[in-house]
């Protein structure tokens, strides 16, 4: 019974407070809620300290955060395989029509459009995935945080810098979706 309920997509008013709970649980462990710090830690583990002092710190002090993202991946596995009915997100009809017109989707399936994320060996896909990754990794560290660190942690502590960063997130997102998508996927 309850599993049937959990298997449906969760409404926003359930998910939102639960994300705040994750932040609280980390604060209670004496840690901050911010996922992008892991990218910096991974650089350090890979030896980036040789090229910049930015990466010279004892990564073991950040190993707790690596455990959190390890858990996040396990959580994604559990949710996908055991807590999901496999339905695609019910997004609005106008957005679906736009995606069809751009040739990004034929039929809405799963969580991601297959034309981009089911690899078919094309350079086009590889460029989207790699450039997207570069922008995320560079931008989040330049801004000093991502959706978790700024939009939740920072804003909940009334940090003006986080508000500026979130305005930037939306500026970038709007530019990409409204102006660059028609060029990229034309």
């Amino acid at each position, binding site marked *: 019974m309850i599993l049937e309920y959990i298997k449906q997509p969760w409404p926003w008013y359930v998910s939102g407070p639960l994300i705040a709970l994750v932040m609280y649980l980390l604060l209670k462990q004496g840690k901050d809620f911010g996922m992008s710090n892991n990218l*910096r830690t991974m650089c350090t583990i890979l030896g980036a300290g040789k090229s910049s002092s930015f990466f010279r710190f004892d990564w073991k002090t950040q190993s707790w955060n690596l455990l959190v993202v390890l858990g996040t991946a396990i*959580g994604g596995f559990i949710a996908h395989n055991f807590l999901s009915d496999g339905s695609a997100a019910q997004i609005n009809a106008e957005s679906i029509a736009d995606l069809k017109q751009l040739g990004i989707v034929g039929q809405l399936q799963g969580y991601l459009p297959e034309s981009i994320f089911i690899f078919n060996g094309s350079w086009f896909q590889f460029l989207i995935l790699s*450039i997207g990754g570069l922008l995320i990794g560079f931008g989040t560290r330049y801004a000093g945080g991502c959706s978790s660190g700024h939009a939740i942690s920072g804003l909940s502590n009334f940090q003006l810098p986080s508000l500026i960063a979130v305005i930037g997130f939306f500026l*970038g997102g709007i530019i990409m979706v409204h102006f660059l998508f028609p060029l990229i996927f034309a």
Partner: protein
Amino acid sequence: MKAIKFILIGILFGIILYKSEAASWYRIYEMFQFRSFHMYGMIGTALATAIILVQIIKRKQVKDSNGMPIAFLDKDKSVTRYLAGGTIFGLGWALTGACPGPMFALIGSGYWTLGIVLLFAILGTWIYGVLRNKLPH
């Protein structure tokens, strides 16, 4: 034992990100088109709850599990780095539909191509670290 706690918190986070559809590329797309309330409702209720929790922690001087006071550091004052960095991040977020949390949840759910995004996100952070002293902050 502490390690298990962090993994469990991560598992909870991963399940929430997946089940909330925040990990869905389509949800991020319609969010940046301002055509659906779903993501705004979610971020809004997350933020409202987080504000209340932070206020409780500050007023009741809640301690962490080691008995230390929970401290909140102010972020450095600036505009350039937050606006420029934020915009660059937003471009990547909209293109791949994944920010650094959902990225891991999606890899776990079996979308291995997000591993390419992750590798290049690590490289992007590396490039930032190398160029940091030349960038306006």
